[in-house]
């Protein structure tokens, strides 16, 4: 699916997760797969508390890490695309 900047995303209900020592660990119980996010990934993960637009996350990442919008958009979109592919996140619309 083509990802737009105004897409809304949310966490899948079929995952388990914890933030341990600053890193996020996500489990897909059915597949028994475990993923670890680094600090930036964990920050993005924390931003996704409810349905949220990709552009809101980009804005937050720019502010938090003092990076250009272009760079943040590219990284956030890649990260989200990967998580959607793994069924950890899903598009709302």
């Amino acid at each position, binding site marked *: 699916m083509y990802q737009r900047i105004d897409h809304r995303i949310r966490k899948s209900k079929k995952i388990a997760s*914890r933030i341990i020592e600053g890193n996020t660990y996500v489990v897909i119980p059915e597949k028994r797969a475990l993923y670890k996010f680094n600090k930036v990934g964990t920050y993005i993960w924390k931003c996704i508390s409810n349905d949220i637009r990709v552009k809101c996350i980009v804005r937050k990442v720019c502010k938090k890490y003092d990076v250009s919008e272009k760079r943040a958009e590219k990284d956030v979109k890649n990260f989200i695309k990967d998580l959607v592919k793994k069924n950890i996140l899903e598009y709302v619309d």
Partner: protein
Amino acid sequence: MLIEKLCEKKNIPLYSIFELTYRCNLQCIHCYIKKDSKKELNFYQIKSILNQISSMGTLFITFTGGEVFVRKDFFKILNYATNKGFAINIFTNATLLDKQKVYELKKFNISEMGISLYSLRDEIHDYITGVRGSLKKTLKGIYILKERGFNIKVKCPLMKVNYSDYSQIIDFCNRLKIKYLFDPVIVPYNDGDKSILSLRLDKTQIEKIIRDIRIVKRYKIKKGFLKSNVLCSAGKNFCSISPYGDVYPCIQLLISAGNLKESKFKKIWNHSKVLKNIREIKMGELKICKNCDIIYYCNRCPGLAHLEDGNLYGPSKIACEIAKIRKNL
């Protein structure tokens, strides 16, 4: 897995086993639980405990019993645990499952269903469970779960009475493409009564099991055991909670660190003397084991050592027996 090591080092209870009830619809001959009439935790107490262990870092939770499906609120508990972001394992005898219940189960974050199966012969399985017709019900449960795509692991404690049936169980599991785990270690009752140990396999039988390449993986030698000061993960990245709220370092190491009806989990986990002592046990303190010439082959369980002889620092008889066999493999 890196997360396990991290949690072991930092004493984060990544894995919790939660015994929700000691009630059961079967009466297995090898069951280590002694019946009593203490009051179980209610749903609200369980919810609070799930909140507490979640905030302390538990990601993987196992619900076990007794038989968990005898609890009328079990689905409510599963729903709450799913919403709290746990990855859930369930140990059950599967006799109380039907299509509707399994359909409901699919809504929750279940990694694996561990199912007790002792034999594929009614006369053996039902003799062990003490309930006629239990094998048929367990098999029905397994088939329904398989049909709905659950990860299943058949769990089979091996005793003299079902020893000759294990090959048939392996064939059955292979046919259904499900995992299996055989355990030759029958443990004493949780009050230390050792009368059920007479059910244990004899040495020749244990040797045959350990030599069987279809189940040998579990008994592969762990290199570096001697170099490690760590005895096991109990009380470090692992904890166990009883139906009455007692916190144990492990389901097999039955030394209570505190009770959740009286204290918060965080307080027990961070300040209990029992846990502190267990975390600090070093190899050198195992006076007999440290000089044993077959320690390299040993998978000693401190909980079993404690249950068998009341000595946390002593050897475990069954571990010694298995180590001797492994040495000669």
